[in-house]
């Protein structure tokens, strides 16, 4: 789980900037989530990511797609979790 550091990084976009080069978990408005290595982002928080797992949640269960490199449209982004992973919660829940 990500940890918080000293005062200056409490600006949201600064925290995302610190995450460049690391894994990030992006939760969209609907039932889709993306985990990948953040390469960069722009003023609209469109994001470029590598080694991506795309999760689609349906009543039947989750579907995972692997994508090598993506440009994620920032329009539908709701939350971003530096260093996070949707699988971690599941493992913790099962333990």
């Amino acid at each position, binding site marked *: *789980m*990500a*940890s*918080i550091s000293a005062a200056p*990084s*409490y*600006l*949201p*976009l600064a*925290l*995302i900037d610190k995450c460049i080069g690391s894994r990030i978990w992006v*939760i*969209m*408005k*609907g039932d889709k989530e993306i985990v990948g290595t953040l390469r960069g982002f722009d003023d609209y*928080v469109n994001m470029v990511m590598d080694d991506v797992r795309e999760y689609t949640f349906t*009543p039947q269960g989750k579907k995972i797609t692997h994508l090598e490199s993506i440009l994620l449209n*920032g*329009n*539908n*982004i*709701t*939350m*971003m*979790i*530096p260093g*996070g992973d949707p699988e971690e*919660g599941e493992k*913790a829940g099962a333990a």
Partner: protein
Amino acid sequence: AMKRDILDLDKHVGKKIHVKFQGGRSVVGVLKGFDPLVNLVLDETVETIMDPEDPDTPTDETRHLGLTVVRGTSVMLVCPAEGMVETKTDPFQQQQEEAEA
């Protein structure tokens, strides 16, 4: 004249807040930081899962997200987590009925 923000998030820093999103998601977390566009940094974030059949109704299911950055473009509502009650009945309806009678 300078444009002024109507939402003063400074007073909520360090406190637990409830955030509702477009699309129906709902979280609580401790406000650590923000910017004028209402992007937020929330710590100890917990998302409450909504009923798939009735997206306005929360289930008892939650998931722990930890330290999150919230996108201001997606924020629909921000309020203090303490002293808030969610209800399905309209608290103003009784007043309306009395007024009509």
